[in-house]
């Protein structure tokens, strides 16, 4: 058996597909049990917004988040690729370094939306495929992902991005249904071990299936943002010189927030800081953004993208064109976070629509 076939087979063994229905009370109990065993992180309200935080019971979880009114400020990448991470300890006397051994224990991310799970799977391509990033991998291996479907919020266009449905990348997946019920799907052995002692899981009956269909009908109906994303890389190839980029370049203020809140932006900066003995020090990784003025500055003082137009255009070309050519997929999962947080009102779905329309017109 060749390597790929083995992989394929393992995948099949790992892929369990058990579906049940449970009441919200059973879910409450489930979360209480889980959170005593594992650190459990879920979206909770903070003032009028939603952030990830450790929880102990179901009632702490943001209602807005469950209902799909809004999503978290930062995406789940935060847990695997933190904004500020110590990587190595250096010693310039013997030109040696030591890895920063972090303490790892299994933890639960509860309620990850389908588009964000897609986001994590894309991050895996970056951090695990060609070059394995230990720091990312260790945390990723320890994560138990409990996904949860939801209604689209006002910025989300995941249906257009093809990320509204998810069939892998989670251990357990939930769908909130009417009549205070939750659909639960167990997809991995890890997931199976979690529900082992949970009573109150029932096979889906006819009514449950009807509720499930209703959920999806409602979800599809609620998408306010639709955009034709087919062949985007080619569309971008053709519109590199479009005047739309001049307009957007004037609109952007280079605040960098769009890339910071994006579930698939992975640019980072590496800094070295020495201790006061000037011999030992540490190497730290921090989030970075291509919208920053000197992001593309190289030795000799040349900046490949000094204008705002060039930078914001690069963001779109990297997400849609470069990423697609390398990984066969767009890097934008349509989560809408950048649209929500861009004070200059730049929204990817609107940008793509404009490009498409302009092309049709001309």
């Amino acid at each position, binding site marked *: 058996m060749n390597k790929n076939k083995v992989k394929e087979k393992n995948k099949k063994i790992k892929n369990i597909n058990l579906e049940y229905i449970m009441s919200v009370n059973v879910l409450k109990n489930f979360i209480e049990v889980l959170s005593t065993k594992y650190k459990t992180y879920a979206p909770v309200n*903070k*003032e*009028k*917004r939603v*952030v*990830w935080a450790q929880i102990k019971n179901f009632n702490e979880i943001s209602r807005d988040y469950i209902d799909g009114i809004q999503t978290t*400020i*930062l995406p789940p990448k*935060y847990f695997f690729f933190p*904004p*500020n991470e110590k990587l190595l300890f250096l010693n*310039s006397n013997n030109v040696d370094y030591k890895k920063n051994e972090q303490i790892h224990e299994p933890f639960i991310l509860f309620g990850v939306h389908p588009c964000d799970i897609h986001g994590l799977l894309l991050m895996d391509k970056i951090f695990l495929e060609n070059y394995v990033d230990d720091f990312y991998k260790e945390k990723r291996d320890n994560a138990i992902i409990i996904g949860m479907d939801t209604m689209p919020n006002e910025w989300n266009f995941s249906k257009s991005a093809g990320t509204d449905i998810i069939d892998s990348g989670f251990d357990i997946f939930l769908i909130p249904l009417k009549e205070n019920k939750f659909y639960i799907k167990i997809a991995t052995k890890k997931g199976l071990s979690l529900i082992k002692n949970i009573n109150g899981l029932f096979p889906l009956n006819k009514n449950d299936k009807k509720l499930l269909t209703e959920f999806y009908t409602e979800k599809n109906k609620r998408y306010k943002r639709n955009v034709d994303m087919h062949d985007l890389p080619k569309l971008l190839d053709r519109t590199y010189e479009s005047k739309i980029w001049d307009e957007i370049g*004037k*609109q*952007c*203020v*280079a*605040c*960098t*927030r769009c890339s*910071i*809140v994006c579930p698939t932006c992975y640019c980072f*900066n590496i*800094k*070295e*800081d*020495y201790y*006061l003995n*000037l011999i030992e020090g540490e190497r730290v990784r*921090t*989030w*970075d*953004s291509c919208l*920053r*003025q*000197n992001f593309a500055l190289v030795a000799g003082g040349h900046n490949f993208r000094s204008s*705002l137009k060039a930078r914001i255009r690069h963001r779109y070309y990297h997400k849609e064109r470069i990423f697609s050519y390398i990984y066969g997929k767009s890097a934008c999962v349509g989560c809408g976070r950048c649209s929500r*947080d861009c*004070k*200059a*009102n730049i929204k990817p779905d609107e940008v793509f629509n404009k490009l498409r329309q302009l092309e049709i017109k001309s």
Partner: protein
Amino acid sequence: MPENKKVKVAFFDFASCEGCQLQVLNLENEFLNLLEHIEIVNFREAISEKSDDYLIAFVEGSITKPSDIPRIKKIRENAKILVALGACATHGCVNSMKNMFKINDVKKATYGDDDKLFDSEEAKPFETFEQAMPLDAVVKVDYYIRGCPINNKEFLMVVKALLKGKMPEITDSAVCLECQAKGNICLYDKGEICLGLISRGGCDAWCPSNGFVCEGCRGFIDKPNIERMKEIIIEKGLSLEYAEKRLQLFNSWELTKNKITLIDDKEKK
């Protein structure tokens, strides 16, 4: 390290509150550790000796009067590396607020009727320029430690990098980068005007993280899109007058130099 291998460092100040030098002294123990690698040959706030022999000069304050010019030029000549220390030195800070007015009005506002004393012979040494200027309006500056006041950890970082012969990593990104990376709730979402959008970070978004708007004490990012910032404030129904006052607090040098205003004279009526 033998005594004579220590790098000679000097501190100077021009128009400023000396708070940034104080921030350096506030390092206390770390400052003492630093003295194993550097020898301070000039530091009015801490020592009385003076010397012209130094490798690195840290200069606080803005250039505001004719007698400052030969002095800063001399420092530039002596120093191999000149570091602007704090907002007055890097971009004019509050000193440059006077740049928005006629100098005689400024004198009047400050000294009342005594303003005529400026015309006397004895007052000659106190003659000031119309404009308060950052150091780089007069001499070449190699590195900028920004902020009002500076973050003394950043000062340490710069010193250590220079001693290691590395280029100090001074950020050029907007405050928003650090603010969002911390997961803060944006103050615009609470109806406030925060200058973090177009202001230079490096302070770990100190003010927004503590619930206060950023006032841009580290200056603007390169080529700030103020035109768009103005539109954003209008779109959000916030006060341009207020925004302009905030902008002027630390950044009047850049505003007057580039003739940037949020409110045109027409609009002002």
